[in-house]
């Protein structure tokens, strides 16, 4: 596990956004959590661009690149 890798940072920020999202379902008025969410979303835009450059498209619509980039269950080279 290399916490500095693009893949790890991408997955960590995605996860932080998701977990805050669940928290906000039951704490919709929490402005501190909302601010944290905005911070993570700003970081996410950049790390996602770097991730897709290295690992291929993350969402469908890219034709061959979508099909040929590794599927999540495949045992990748794994830097994360």
């Amino acid at each position: 596990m290399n916490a500095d890798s693009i893949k790890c940072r991408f997955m960590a920020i995605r996860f932080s956004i998701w977990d805050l999202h669940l928290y906000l379902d039951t704490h919709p008025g929490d402005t501190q959590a909302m601010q944290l969410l905005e911070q993570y979303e700003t970081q996410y835009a950049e790390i996602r661009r770097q991730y897709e450059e290295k690992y291929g498209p993350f969402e469908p619509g890219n034709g061959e690149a979508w099909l040929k980039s590794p599927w999540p269950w495949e045992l990748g080279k794994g830097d994360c």
Partner: protein
Amino acid sequence: MWEYQKTLQYPIRIQNPNPLYAKIIQSQYGGPDGELGASLRYLSQRFSMPTPELRGLLTDIGTEELGHLEMVGTIVHQLTRNLSADEIKQNGFESYFVDHTNGVYPASSAGVPFTAAYLQCKGDAIADLTEDLAAEQKARVTYDNILRLVDDPDVRDVIKFLREREIVHFQRFGEGLRLLTDRLNAKNFYAFTPGVDQPVPVR
């Protein structure tokens, strides 16, 4: 609707195949307290939830459980790849192999196929959320049992992540139940069906 995102919620890279571990962990794919039942339970129950918070919560946790289903399927897939005939015969994996080869089929560890009887959808928010709390605890216990049976650190790391998520979901469902009861008549929680007998005011 849903759109697929080509990633797992947490990375999985299992170096050593192990058919016994696959057979144990299989239960969290299609067993009584597994991720398929969890996702169908929450995504079905959300239609009759009386408040926006609860509709959001069940939609989001149900969606996350679909991601966990993919993760458990990935564990089983990686544990059963490139097995030799001898490895298949060991550990009782041949009884699975004969019907499913290396496919990932939703069944319990004992081979019982998935059934919707594992979940309920009562249309009563208190009944459904109370079931959801129990479901998260049962899934957490199953992951703890897996941790008692499995030594491989590659597998344990992922199982520990999934176990933690059950605890977070239990917390969120508890908050959801409290948000609901805060809006009901405290003298009368269990005597009527929220959403049918006396609709909760929609914000």
